[in-house]
């Protein structure tokens, strides 16, 4: 690995030197250069391995579009959404909702998957980092929209009713893989990436949709 990394770096230096001192390399060459520099600049630490640098197609296309400063072509966005929707694993026996109290704990926790986290501690959902959720918690982020009264505002009085089915399914899908509905959403793909498990998602679902949850008061 070490040998490969230094070899890559050597190639990078040569590539840049060959370009000379006057002109900037073409976009494709800068993309390749970024890849080789990235490969040579990170190392494993604890549970976190360098394989995390491998981007899937969704991330690669969204990153490139953002760096270019132009949105994805509509058909490109649609293809990403379709591919991500296919990954959504629907809950066993149609059980969508768990316990909102557990959901609140998961929403509060930002633990998990950094190189300083203990792999034995359950991962959190990081939800409050970006969203307002319950009204009681005033320390919330604003990267995502407010989810206060999420279920109530969407008319969910009985999550098991046929009228609620569409919004309940959408919420599950959004938590499992947010990119199924918004190609370059900032939100992590919690189920798809295995950040939290199916049971934890059920609890977060309850926090958002259970009429008894403080979110819907």
């Amino acid at each position: 690995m070490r040998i490969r990394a230094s070899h890559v770096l050597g190639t990078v230096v040569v590539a840049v030197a060959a370009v000379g001192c006057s002109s900037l390399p073409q976009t494709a060459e800068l993309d390749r250069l970024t890849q080789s520099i990235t490969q040579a600049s990170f190392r494993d630490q604890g549970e976190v391995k360098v394989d995390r640098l491998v981007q899937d197609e969704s991330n690669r296309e969204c990153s490139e579009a953002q760096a270019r400063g132009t949105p994805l072509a509509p058909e490109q966005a649609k293809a990403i959404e379709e591919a991500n929707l296919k990954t959504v694993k629907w809950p066993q026996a149609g059980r969508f909702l768990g316990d909102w109290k557990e959901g609140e704990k998961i929403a509060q926790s930002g633990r998990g998957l950094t190189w300083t986290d203990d792999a034995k501690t359950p991962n959190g959902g990081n939800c409050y980092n970006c969203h307002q959720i319950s009204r009681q918690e005033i320390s919330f982020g604003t990267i995502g929209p407010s989810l206060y009264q999420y279920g109530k505002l969407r008319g969910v009085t009985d999550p098991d009713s046929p009228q609620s089915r569409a919004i309940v399914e959408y919420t599950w899908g959004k938590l499992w893989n947010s990119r199924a509905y918004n190609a370059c959403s900032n939100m992590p793909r919690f189920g798809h990436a295995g950040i939290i498990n199916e049971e934890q998602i059920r609890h977060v679902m309850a926090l958002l949709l259970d009429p008894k949850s403080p979110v819907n008061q």
Partner: protein
Amino acid sequence: MRKTILLLALGLGAGSATLAQKSATESIEEYRAMLADGNPADLFEAKGEALWKQARGPKNASVERCDLGKGPGVVKGAFVELPRYFADTGKVQDLESRLVTCMETLQGFDGKAIAQTPFNQGEQNNVTALATWVAAESKGMKFNLPQSHTQERVAYEVGKRLFFMRGGPHDFSCASCHGEEGKRIRLQDLPVLTKNPGNGVGFAAWPAYRVSNGQMWSMQQRLNDCYRQQRFPYPIFGSDALTALSTYLGVNAQGAVSAVPTIKR
């Protein structure tokens, strides 16, 4: 007395979430203002100044003749023009990696060993102290990174791509948090780093003293912790990726006044 406070708190909670929100933010602002009075970074700055002149290392020499880009021994104004291209190493370097180069060439230290030393340990402490002093010598000056050499422009372009590179289990990039105006994580305001975020903000704020862990952090350490929270693998100290990213942030901060060393929560 306790009852009154409790009632007051209840009243606040029941009255308006926005009001509670605002006062929480305000008290954090007050806390920050109190912190700014008497920044322990001064101690690291003094240590860095002493280290600059001190004969050390296998060659028992000082780094006083270190060329930080404006000629050997010129410190004032060097920080606000880094990262930049250095002909002797054939590389774009940031402040910390350049200091390690000088410790290697002038003092005979093993640069690789320093790069592998964890932050806040051994020679890394000295690199941070030196960086703090060098940076502080440019306090009040405006960022003005050179972009005349091709490699400096290549570093900017690579840094831009790294800034937007989504990956890891959470799909985070730098832009996830620092790409849009007026966003927060919990109550922490996030600077937009795709442009000049203002004087003494973002790139113009590090090295900084961190009250939460009582440590002095260089920009290398700040970026390292960003990548940790991004759930990325560990960025190697002085690596080309960190230099490129710093170049992107530094060029974007063109014209911002350096407030370094600052104090953070």
